[in-house]
């Protein structure tokens, strides 16, 4: 047991100087630069609504583009403004008659994020607003053809970039959304969590 602990400490001591050395040497991004990124993201959405999960499953793939402006404040701190879109489509079955249903959810998001940019990677965290448009289409035997509507919501998002080159980064993110609608006559929770990755291309301004 002592031998294992000693081995772990030795490894840790080796990595600390190595990391600080890397930070200095492999810094891709210039300091205090404004930049604009475009990204294409993909991930999985985990709904908070029980009926949603019953009909469409526990997780659904989502994808969409992002546009982000970064304004450095004081290196390495900055502020990001993100405008994004998200698209979700799924097929399911009604709970009792097992008739086919189709769901399509499109949302527009705007986030303001604090970002910590190291040059090699960056971390971000911030709140945002969503505008969610939904449409559910039913089988011919169902009493109605479709239901559609829209609702506003909020979210908080967090994640990080790993810079592959001065122009290209890999992004990982987490988003927790809050959106509820009473429009059908009962409450549907459109919120949930979303985990995903994105490929990001950067333009310096």
């Amino acid at each position, binding site marked *: 047991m002592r031998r294992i602990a000693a081995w772990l400490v030795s490894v840790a001591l080796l990595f600390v100087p190595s990391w600080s050395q890397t930070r200095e040497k492999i810094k891709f991004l210039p300091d205090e630069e404004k930049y604009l990124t475009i990204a294409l993201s993909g991930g999985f959405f985990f709904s908070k*609504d029980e*009926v*949603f999960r*019953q*009909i*469409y499953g526990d997780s659904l793939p989502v994808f969409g583009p992002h546009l982000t402006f970064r304004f450095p404040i004081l290196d390495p701190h900055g502020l990001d403004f993100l405008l994004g879109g998200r698209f979700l489509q799924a097929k*399911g079955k*009604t*709970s*009792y*008659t097992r008739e086919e*249903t189709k*769901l399509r959810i499109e949302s527009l998001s705007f986030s303001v994020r604090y970002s910590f940019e190291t040059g090699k990677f960056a971390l971000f965290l911030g709140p945002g607003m969503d505008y969610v448009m*939904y449409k*559910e289409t*039913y089988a011919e*035997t*169902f*009493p*109605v053809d479709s*239901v559609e*509507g829209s609702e506003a919501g909020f979210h908080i998002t967090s994640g990080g970039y790993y810079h592959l080159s001065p122009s290209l980064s890999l992004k990982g993110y987490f988003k927790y959304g809050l959106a509820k609608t009473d*429009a*059908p*006559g*009962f409450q*549907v929770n459109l919120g949930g969590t979303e985990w995903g990755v994105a490929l990001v291309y950067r333009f310096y301004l």
Partner: protein
Amino acid sequence: MGLKNRVPSGRKSDLALIALFLALSSASFAQLRFTEVSQLYMVRGYSFFGGHGAAWVDINRDGRLDLYVKNVSSATVPNPPDILYINYGTYFLDEATLRGVADAYAEGTHGAVFADFNKDRNLDLFASTTYYTSKGVFNHLYRNTGNGFFQDFSSAILPSPPLNTTTRGVAAGDFDRDGDIDFYFSNPLSDPDPANPYPSPPKSLANFLINNGDGTFTLAYRGVDWTGFTQGVSAVDFDNDGDIDLAEAKWGPPSTIYRNDGNGNFLNVGSLIGLPATANVFDNAMVFADLDNDGDLDLAIVGEGAVTLYRNTGTSFSKYEVILSSRTGGVAHCCIADFDNDGILELYLSGENIYENDGTGHFTVVPASVSGLAASLTAVDPRGCAAGDFDGDGDLDIYLTDKRGYNLFFRNERNNSDWIQVEIVSDHTGSYGGLNSKIDLYTAGQLGKKAYLKGYREIQGEYGYLGQDMPFAHFGAPSAGGARYDLRVTFLDGRERTYLSLAPGQKIQVTMISPPLNFRGVKKENKALFYRESLIELNWEPNPLNTNVQKYRLYKIDSGWTLLAEVPGNQFEWTIRNVDKAKTYRFGITAVDEGGSESEPAYAVVGGSALQGDRVKSVFRSLNWKGV
């Protein structure tokens, strides 16, 4: 020696035999006892009189027989309304005007027959309008719209019915065997003079209303010529060949029978089957019943001062007995029924006595002092009568109309459980009442064996002279020794239903087809993400009594009955989509056979407080089955 001493002398022996005979007779007669109760039940008719015909029918389907009284005008009172006495249990109220069947035209109504012509399980009415002097009158059809309210349906007759006819007797039945009720009316011409009843040649006039099955009737001639003034009309299958024949009692020409060829075309066969060819007689009624209990319909012709009895030999009628009337002049009508529940038919002569049958069709008068029918003998100008169990006590009561006096109502005091009644709720056509269905009652275990036949009936509409008995068959069925009975119902199309080992004291409700079993429903929620649908799943089980269910009919019941769906006969569930989650729904389901006959409904309540058993039936009955 001692024995010899006890043998009575010849005179003593005669006296003893007479005493024994009287004792036996009185013991038999003692079972017949009526009480005149017309004032008690408020059914005396109008103070200006005019009573002519009577019909016992449950027009509002509340389980109690109502009474329709057909009236003609007096010298001072024109346009006499008919009377519809609604039975409220302990009293009757005239609601003819309220319910739309006052039929107050011209000189009043003679013949009128109730029958379910549109298969909605409600008895509709075809009423004649008497013409003497008023112009523009015609016979009327009335449709029962449910719960015993009527709507004039005469416009459904195409071409329009003839005006100013002098119809007396009318008849109802599926004459053309196409599965719905047609009508016949006598004297389809204007102003025939009863005193000169010999037209020459006979007139071939349209005198049938043929039901087209689509809510219209076609006025048609089907071979029954007008040969002279007709009084009563009866429609029975006298030759047991599966179609309905017509009998007309006439003034002048001999009364006769028109045989149906099976397609609703008729031929006068009176002279071929043993009926008298004597002219210049004045008959009022031809009444058919199985007087000798041999399984066919014998005949009583009611006419001038007598009732002449004819035995049905299978191929013809053979005159065998004459009952003389104590009244001078004509006798109008007779009711033949088992009034004392002894299993043998008696005969009540309008305005006279009741006659006891010895079981072979021979009749003996029952003194009014015994029968309680003394008031009957006081009737001023008696006309039609009708028998019906108005109080549901298992014996037949008699209503007698009087043209020149108050009508009389005789309550039967037999009050025992020696009876079986048969109500045909749905016959082979789906109609209520089962007109011309034949019903045999046998000793249990001996179904179909003639030696054990205990009674034979054919359901009739108006018969004889303007009488219509209750639309159930009534059998006296003695219960002594725990006797039980088998019953066979034969519909006009030949199909049968049998009921075995029946205990006396009950009314059997017959449907050509039985409702499905275990009909029930449950409300479910069907969820999509943005739509929540409530639906009702109904399911049922096939009734093993049915062998040929073609489909099931599902009805939604609220203020009326709405047909929801027709489901194939091999399917036993149905889903109703998108219902109100909070609402209570009521449903009825019927089975329909290949012939279109529809069963009584089974019921289900979904949502709300559960109703059970008779309470469910009561609620649904109040909603008027098929009163769409």
